[in-house]
Structures are given as structure tokens and as C-alpha cells.
């Protein structure tokens, strides 16, 4: 029975592979409405900076989105690292068992998880047993070799997807039988085919925080295949192969290269920062259109330039077809790009203040040059060249050469986004509320301060009796204090928000750190329940 199944599956392997590809495409098109944001850490137990009396039996990390843990380490006060391997997932919370009683002093719990958008997220929390000691060194050093490799592989993948597949498309649809640039296009496709699996392996290394030398370890590839980046790679591989086939079988070139072009859009939309932003259907469609537009434009440059240079017979017709269709394509490309940039960057100031924004600014500068050249080609050089004017043709070829160079530079900048969370995700993380749950026999409360960092915040309080029944309080007072910084009680009456919660508006938390929280809940005229706890406020 077993072997029968196996052999059948081997026979239908190709079909299954195709079905899987279709399924993936379907999943992407009918993108889940669930909010896949860049996961942000919301709460931890023990809290960051906590001083514990006893060694905890377990640790927990709660994220804004479901995550899967990759590496969890506990750095002990003496600097030794204890890998934490026993953990389980409880909704958005990673619960980690503590394998051994901890010694006195400050510990660092360092975590690395992969979020739903496929990118690993990492951080660490400090807590102390008994009393704080000097924090042990647990710095997350950046592996520059690995980063360079990831970047190069990404640039090569872009070259394959845009110059290769776009080139195959241009040769099939625009060149009118001309085969100039075929070798260039084939090279780009092969570079992409080599870079795609390499990118996946490097993603695995990055996810596990392992050095380049571990690339052949099975665990690395298993980790990589857990990330959503695998969808991108599968689709990209299929699209690149279709592109190669289109080159080899000119008769079926149109169908194959069109499929490859659509694959380029799908591959890009399948993972990455932009595809993870809300609204997903819009963002993924924009990425799809943006990718197709880039491939159409950039892919045609090399075959066109080479045809013009050689003064191939069909070159003028090629140029006419290209300049006829390029305007709407660039319009779509620009509109999609602008939508993506607005959602990702949010505020214009983020262009200067965040790494992601800086890369976008650099890309915009390069694009300004690229568009100037393209406009020059389109409106000054194309008409004379179409009229077979030799001088203009030479200028056009030179200009196209510079364009290709600029396109590669843009790919280089875009590949740098791999390392920077977009301002959208940063803002989302900053806006996460600080929340605690206080539970006593008489009453319990869920208190959240939003946003959970210093400055003006709104407090929201949900009350229940100790046995989860409704608690209809007459009045609630929130008292915040920070004795270790000499900040005495900040006292605010809460008001009923109308949705069953109590709210305090216009509260200002001046300092980051551990704040003491007290809730005075007037249950009846003579009966007050007081709940106390501490809450961590981010800077």
C-alpha cells in the first residue's frame, strides 16, 4: 500500500508540482484577509527589566501576530549561553520551558522568530534573579558576509526575473523575430536560476542566525522552507524555467513568456514587506503590477539596444512597438510604486529618518535619472532612430546602455530593503499598547496603555470579578507612579467608554521603564477593591 502510494506520487510528481504551483498562486490571489503585519513583541513574562524572587519555571513571549520560533537562547550572568529547545505555541504566545534553576544575577533571554511575512524578527529581554548584576554580553552581531551574500543573490534574482524573463517576453512579443540579446537574456535567466535556491538557503541561514559555512546543513534548509519566502522561490524558479523554454521554443514563445512574466509578478507578491501590509489584496496586486511593469520595461532594454546597435533589420519595428506600449506600462508601474511607497513609508519625514526611507530616497534619485533618460529616448531619439538616422541610433544605443546600468543600480538599492523593516512596520510596533493583566480573588483587570511608549497615552481598563463575572463598578481611579525615579502618583479618574471598558484620556507618561500601577475600583459605596501591578513602558 505504502509503496503503491509512493510510486504513484512519483509518477504524478510533475502534475503535483504544477498543482502546488497553482494552489500557491490561488492562495496569493485570494490573499487571506487576516492582518499579516510584521510581528511585534507585545508582552513578555518575565517583563523586561523585572527582578524576580524565584527562578521561573517558564518564560513566555507574546507577539502581535502568530510566529514560529527559530532560536531561543538564555544568556546567563556569567556569559554562558543556554539554548532553550523545549517550547510550544499558544496562539500568539511562545511558551518556553526553563530547563534548569537559574543563578542570581541578570539574565538575557534572546529570541529569534519568523513572522507571517517571512522575515525573521529578533530581540532580547533582560531580567534578574534576586538582584540585578551587570548585564551579560549578548549582542546580536551583524554577519556582514552573510548580508553581502543575501544582497548579491537578491540582485541576481532580480536580474533573472526582470532582465531575463522581461527579455524573453520582449523577444517573443516585440522583437518581431529578431534574436538580438538572446545570449544576454539567457545569462540573466541562468543567473536567476542559480540565485533562487541560493537565496532560499541564505534566508535559512539568516533565520537561524547561522554563518555562511552552515549553508549545507539540513536544518538551515528546513528553516528556510518554513518561511513564506519559499513561495517566492518556487514561483520564481518556475517562471525562470518558463522563460528559458520561451527562448528555446520560439513557436510557443508568446504563451511561455507571458506565463513567465505573470510568474514574476506572483513571485514578488508572494512574500516580502509590501505583500504583508494591509490591505493585502491591494498591496499584493500593486506588487504584482509593479513587478510586471519593471520586467516589461527593463527586459526590453538589452535586446532593443543590441538590435539597434547591430542595425538589425527588425530593429526599427522593435523600437516602434516598444515605444508604443511603454507609456501605459510605465504609468501602471509608477502608480503601483507610489501606492506601495505611501503605504510603506507613511509619513514623508520617514524618508529621511529611517533606513528604509533612505533606500527609497536613493531609489527615487536613481529613478529620476532613469526616467529622464527614458523620456529623452522616447521623445528626442526614438523618432529620428525610427527614421533610420545613424547618429540618433548611436545615441539611443548609448543611452539604453546607461539605462541598463541605472536599472541594475535600482535593483541593488531595492535588494537592500531586505534588511530594513518599513516605517509602516516600525510605526505599528511603536503603537503597540503596553498591557497587563491583574488577577486577585476579588477582581481582575486588563489594563492597556496605548501606545505603550512615553508621551500621551490612553488607558483602557476592562474589569471582571475574580471568577470571570461582570463587575459593575461605580468608579475607577488609575494611579501611576514610578518610585525609583522619584515620580509620585499620577491619579486619574476613569470614565465609562460605553463599550464596557473604562478609559482615561489625555494621560501623559513622561519616562520609560517600570511603572507601578494601581487601580482603585469602587464596587459599592463602602467597598473598594485595589489592584496593583507594574507595567513596562517603552522609550
Amino acid at each position, binding site marked *: 500500500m505504502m509503496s503503491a502510494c509512493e510510486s504513484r506520487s512519483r509518477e504524478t510528481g510533475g502534475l503535483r508540482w504544477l498543482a502546488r504551483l497553482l494552489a500557491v498562486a490561488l492562495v496569493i490571489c485570494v490573499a487571506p484577509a487576516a492582518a499579516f503585519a510584521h510581528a511585534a513583541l507585545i508582552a513578555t513574562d518575565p517583563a523586561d527589566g523585572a527582578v524576580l524572587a524565584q527562578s521561573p519555571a517558564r518564560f513566555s513571549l507574546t507577539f502581535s501576530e502568530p510566529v514560529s520560533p527559530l532560536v531561543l537562547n538564555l544568556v546567563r550572568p556569567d556569559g554562558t549561553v543556554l539554548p532553550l529547545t523545549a517550547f510550544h505555541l499558544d496562539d500568539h504566545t511562545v511558551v518556553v520551558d526553563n530547563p534548569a534553576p537559574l543563578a542570581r544575577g541578570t539574565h538575557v533571554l534572546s529570541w529569534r522568530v519568523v513572522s507571517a511575512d517571512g522575515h525573521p524578527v529578533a530581540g532580547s529581554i533582560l531580567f534578574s534573579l534576586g538582584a540585578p548584576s551587570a548585564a551579560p554580553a549578548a549582542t546580536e552581531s551583524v554577519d556582514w558576509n552573510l548580508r553581502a551574500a543575501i544582497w548579491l543573490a537578491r540582485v541576481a534574482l532580480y536580474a533573472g526575473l526582470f532582465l531575463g524573463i522581461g527579455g524573453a517576453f520582449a523577444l517573443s512579443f516585440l522583437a518581431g523575430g529578431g534574436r538580438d540579446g538572446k545570449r544576454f537574456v539567457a545569462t540573466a535567466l541562468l543567473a536567476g536560476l542559480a540565485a533562487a535556491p541560493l537565496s532560499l538557503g541564505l534566508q535559512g541561514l539568516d533565520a537561524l542566525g547561522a554563518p555562511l559555512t552552515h549553508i549545507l546543513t539540513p536544518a538551515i534548509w528546513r528553516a528556510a522552507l518554513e518561511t513564506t519566502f519559499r513561495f517566492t522561490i518556487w514561483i520564481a524558479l518556475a517562471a525562470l524555467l518558463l522563460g528559458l523554454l520561451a527562448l528555446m521554443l520560439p513557436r510557443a514563445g508568446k504563451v511561455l513568456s507571458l506565463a513567465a512574466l505573470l510568474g514574476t509578478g506572483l513571485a514578488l507578491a508572494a512574500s516580502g514587506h509590501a505583500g504583508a501590509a494591509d490591505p493585502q489584496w491591494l498591496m499584493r496586486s500593486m506588487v504584482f503590477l509593479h513587478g510586471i511593469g519593471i520586467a516589461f520595461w527593463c527586459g526590453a532594454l538589452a535586446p532593443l539596444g543590441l538590435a539597434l546597435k547591430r542595425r538589425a533589420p527588425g530593429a526599427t519595428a522593435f523600437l516602434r512597438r516598444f515605444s508604443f506600449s511603454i507609456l501605459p506600462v510605465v504609468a501602471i508601474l509608477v502608480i503601483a510604486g507610489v501606492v506601495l511607497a505611501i503605504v510603506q513609508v507613511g509619513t514623508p519625514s520617514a524618508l529621511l529618518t529611517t533606513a528604509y526611507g533612505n533606500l527609497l530616497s536613493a531609489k527615487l534619485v536613481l529613478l529620476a535619472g532613469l526616467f529622464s533618460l527614458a523620456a529623452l529616448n522616447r521623445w528626442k531619439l526614438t523618432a529620428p532612430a525610427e527614421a533610420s538616422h545613424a547618429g540618433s541610433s548611436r545615441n539611443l544605443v548609448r543611452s539604453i546602455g546607461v539605462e541598463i546600468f541605472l536599472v541594475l543600480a535600482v535593483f541593488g538599492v531595492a535588494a537592500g530593503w531586505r534588511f530594513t523593516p518599513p516605517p509602516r512596520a516600525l510605526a505599528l510596533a511603536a503603537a503597540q499598547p503596553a498591557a497587563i493583566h491583574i488577577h486577585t480573588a476579588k477582581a481582575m483587570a486588563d489594563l492597556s496603555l496605548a501606545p505603550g511608549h512615553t508621551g500621551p497615552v490612553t488607558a483602557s481598563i476592562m474589569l471582571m470579578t475574580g471568577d470571570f463575572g461582570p463587575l459593575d463598578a461605580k468608579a475607577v481611579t488609575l494611579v501611576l507612579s514610578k518610585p525609583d525615579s522619584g515620580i509620585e502618583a499620577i491619579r486619574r479618574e476613569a470614565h465609562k467608554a460605553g463599550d464596557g471598558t473604562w478609559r482615561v484620556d489625555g494621560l501623559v507618561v513622561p519616562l520609560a521603564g517600570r511603572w507601578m500601577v494601581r487601580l482603585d475600583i*469602587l464596587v459599592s*459605596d*463602602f*467597598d*473598594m477593591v*485595589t489592584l496593583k501591578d507594574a507595567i513596562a513602558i517603552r522609550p
Partner: protein
Amino acid sequence: MLAGFRPLFAAGFLLAGAPAAFAHVTLETGEAAIGSSYKAVLRVPHGCEGKATTAIRVKMPEGFIAVKPMPKPGWKLETVRGKYAAPYQLWGETVTEGVLEVKWSGGDLPDEFYDEFVMRGQLSADLPAGEKLYFPVVQECGEAAERWIEIPQAGESEDSLEKPAPAITLRRKK
């Protein structure tokens, strides 16, 4: 040796303890024996943040039974009667209900004046000697109110509370 310093200690204690006592609503007699009568004299040193006191409401602690409040000229006196949580023995009879809450209202006690509110009752012999008995008080000043109802939780000092309920320490009957 130390005996000679005792008055000095007492003076120091008074100096340290006095401001708190003057700021809070308190009971004049801070200690009473169980199984005997107790005259509770509530001392009201000020209004609610400058406003004149217009009503005083006191919740009877469980075990303070057969309560009779003392009328005050210029104040309307009311009581809320109801069942006790448990039956008590008083003079050989079982008592199951009585005054649960006392309210003096309609008065006008300016912030700069002082007054006392009095009631008398019986401290049940079932009450635990050595522990504290709390008399939660709500002081009303027109719309405003001060609630002297905080009761320290286990391990918490009464001094850390901002508005502690007036309390007495119960002791064994001699």
C-alpha cells in the same frame, strides 16, 4: 534607664502621628473589648477639599450590633436596617438583624470647623481579639465626596493608605 525617656518617646510619637490623625476621619477611642459596649465617636476634622460637609454615612462592621446613633441638632438622622451576615447572641437572645448603615444628612459643617458624630453599640464576643475592626465612612460635601473606606490588605501597612477606613483594635474582655 529607658523609662525616663518614655514621655519623650510619647511626645515624638504624637508629633509624628498627629498630622495624619488630624487629616483623616478617625475614631476617638482606638481600642475596645469584645463582648462589651462601644461608643464610637467619629471625628471629622475637615470637609472635602475645602467644601463644607453635608452628610456622613457609616457602614457598620459585621459584629458591631444593636447600634443606636446619637441625633445631632441641625442634622437629619436615618438608619438602614437589615439582616446580619450571622446571628449573634446578646443578653441570652439571638439577634439576627439591626442597623447596617447610619446616615447624618442635611447638615452644614464648614471646612474650618470640627465636629463629632456618635453612635453606641455592642461588640460581639465572637469577634477576633487582637485584630482590627473597620468602620468605612463616606463623607459627602454636596456633589463631592471623600471615601474613608480603604482597608489594608494582608502585609500592607495602614500608613500607606491614602484614605483609610476608621478602625479600632479589638482586645479581650478583662
